[in-house]
């Protein structure tokens, strides 16, 4: 072990935060450029997996916003709901609309797609994150 480096625990905490931030950025970017909910979700899964490998599965599990299955269920629900506004406008289900918000100098494009993508993000994080953590936990119990 190289002693002058910070311990792995500190390192992974920073990595966790950075990965989550990156995942959210990819999610946001997915509206008009390559990226999106699935890739963002996988990034989040990678963050959870890294955390679990350094600490343990239980603490990684506690850092998830919700219990994995609930997280996934919320994601699916959100994705399903995101298609509803279109119905109010008489458009087919899951038709998405976008507007550009202006905050003085900064212009932000926002559309209902982001809701759908967020649903996917949560679903992927819940399902594959739960999967990885369960696998890591099984390995821990073994040894």
């Amino acid at each position: 072990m190289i002693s002058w480096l910070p311990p792995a625990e500190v390192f992974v905490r920073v990595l966790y935060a950075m990965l989550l931030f990156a995942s959210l950025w990819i999610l946001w970017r997915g509206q008009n450029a390559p990226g999106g909910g699935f890739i963002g979700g996988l990034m989040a899964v990678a963050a959870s997996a890294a955390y679990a490998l350094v600490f343990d599965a239980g603490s990684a599990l506690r850092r998830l916003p919700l219990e994995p299955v609930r997280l996934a269920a919320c994601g699916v629900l959100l994705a399903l709901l995101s298609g509803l506004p279109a119905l109010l406008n008489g458009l087919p289900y899951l038709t998405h609309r976008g507007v550009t918000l202006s905050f003085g100098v900064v212009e932000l494009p926002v559309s209902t797609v982001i809701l759908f993508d967020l649903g996917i993000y949560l679903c992927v994080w819940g399902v594959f994150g739960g999967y990885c953590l369960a696998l890591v936990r099984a390995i821990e119990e073994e040894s």
Partner: protein
Amino acid sequence: MLLSSGRIPAWKPTANPILGEPVSSITRDNHRRGCNPGLLLALVPAVLLALLMAALYVVPLPWRLTWPWVPSLGVEFALYVDGLSAQFLLLITGIGTMVFVYGAGYLAENPRRNRVFVLLLLFMAAMIGAVGSDNLLLLFVFWELTTVLSFLLIGVDHDQQASRKSAQQALLVTGSGGLFLLAGIILLGQIGGSYSLQTLLTQAPLLQEDSRLKAALTLIFIGAFCKSAQFPFHFWLPNAMSAPTPVSAYLHSATMVKLGIYLLARLDAAFSDLLFWQYALISTGTFTAVIAAIQTIRERDLKRILAWSTVATLGTLTMLIGLPGNSAALAVAVLFFAHALYKAPLFFVAGNLDHGVGTRAIDKLTGMRRYMPWTAIVALLAALSMAGLPLTFGFIAKGAIVHAKEQVDALQLVSYAAMFVNGVSVAVAAIAAIHIFWGRDRSPRQVQPHEVPVTMLLPPLILVVLGLLFGLVPTLVDPALGAAVHAMSPGFDITTVSESYEFLAVVKAMLGAILLGCVILLSWNRLDLLLRRVHRLHKIGPEAWYWRSLEFLPLLAARQTRLLQHGRLPYYLLTMIGAATLLILILLLAARPDWNWPDLQTLNAPVFGASLLIAAGALVAMFVRDHLVLLLVSGLVGYGCAVLFLFTGAPDVAFTQFAVETIFVVVVAAVLLRLRRTPLDMRAVSTEARLRPLALAVAIVFGASLTALVLLMSGLPFDSVLADFYGEQCL
């Protein structure tokens, strides 16, 4: 099954809405004395017969009734009754009445009699449907119904192995023939654009120009030959004689086996001038008749003798349909009638002997006249008609046949064959009437033979008396026969059967047949011995092949199971991948004229690099032993794919592939590290051969064929409809 439920005592008669009250109340198998279901049920065909005859007098033919059935397929529940159908309907209901009355006596002691009666009723309904339907598909449905009911009726004594085997044989032969018929019907429908028989018949000249017609007719021939016991599908009929005698008389002589003949006669109006039609029917019919006549001599059981002579008659009918000309149609119509009127009584005679004496073996039956005088009279009268002696309906039939042959200068060979067949049928008639009933009873008997009850005498008596009556006064049947002939041969308008032939010619033919018949009768035993010695044909005949294929089937299944269901995963996969490879290769080779290999374009460095990475990873993966290294190498392939996607305009796919590959490798690596610590009893790695040549060969061929597929695919013009559609929709 519907009918076996009759054994349950608590079964409620009203629980059967289809069969109705009178049937269901007698379906129970516990038979009660005093209530005779056969007599009661005989009312059904009798009433139908009366209604039919009344209708025939009142309403002019043809009758037409149509309901939509499967409109999307153009299938209608269409009924069409013309002279030919009416003749069959008369036979079905008329003989049906006699069969039910006879069955009341014959089956009185049979514990399964109610089942037989219900099946017979259903059979009658199916027959009526078959000869009445105008739509060929509807006809096919009823046709197969008669097949199934025939199976059930032959196998009614299901505790006898012989019964079961015969039933199975009849079902397999006529049922598979039915499939050929279905194919033929569909093909004919495709050619003619309709499944309606009448429409097809009116389009006959158009149909004859189509090149597929021969195939369609061949398929229909096979179906009809199976049903009507024509060579080489004839062997099932004599075996079907294990059914109770009323069933044999009804199904296997008078009605069902004539269904094939009916269909051929139906189509005769359209195709009788085709040479193919004539040759096929004349040769098959004649050959069947001769084979059956030879087989007749080899039998010692009266019922089987009658069965073979029925096959001979069916052959004659087929041959007559094949003969062109109007008088042939007349001969067919007359022989239909005459055969039903003499053969059914003869079957009843065989049943009476079975009932009164307990045997049907002709060696043990002589001088029965003393014990069974009425049966003897029936036998004598029926035999006179069968031998074609003057003043019987059989004579008229013979006259019509002779005339039909004279009209068209039939082949000399056919005439000789017909003479031989006639001689044998005279001999059979003589055996049934004279050999059995006259002379002395020389066989030792434990039980005194006795005459049968009146229910078993009246039906055959009525039939033979009718035969005599029609023979004496042929004008009685002229309207019915005239209508039938008109249906088969529209241009023919003869109305008097009796004037359609020359008396002298018929007498000449008859005398010849009787002479030959006497010779055959006298030398019956010697001929039998001779045939037994010479006749080795049964070892290569169609029936032998039938049994051989029946035995071969389970062997094939066992071998195939052993070959395919071995429980070894790699070989299952090998089979599947091998089959897929074969399919791809066949498709590629079939498209050979369109092969267009793409050019070697200028190299795109990133794509080339990615491809190199992928190929290298894959090659190393094949021969790496360690699991962890294998995993990493497979990750290399995944990353290579991602790079490839990135540089071919698919950054989204590339990122996804990167993310997926990373997580997968991490997770599996964790699992593998754990597995390393787990002790296993048996590691596959240590037992597996280092190089598996078969797997390697299959893998290389499969990979190469897919490479070729991709290359050739890229040489084809690109259809961008879908891509453009999505491009427009995404705005």
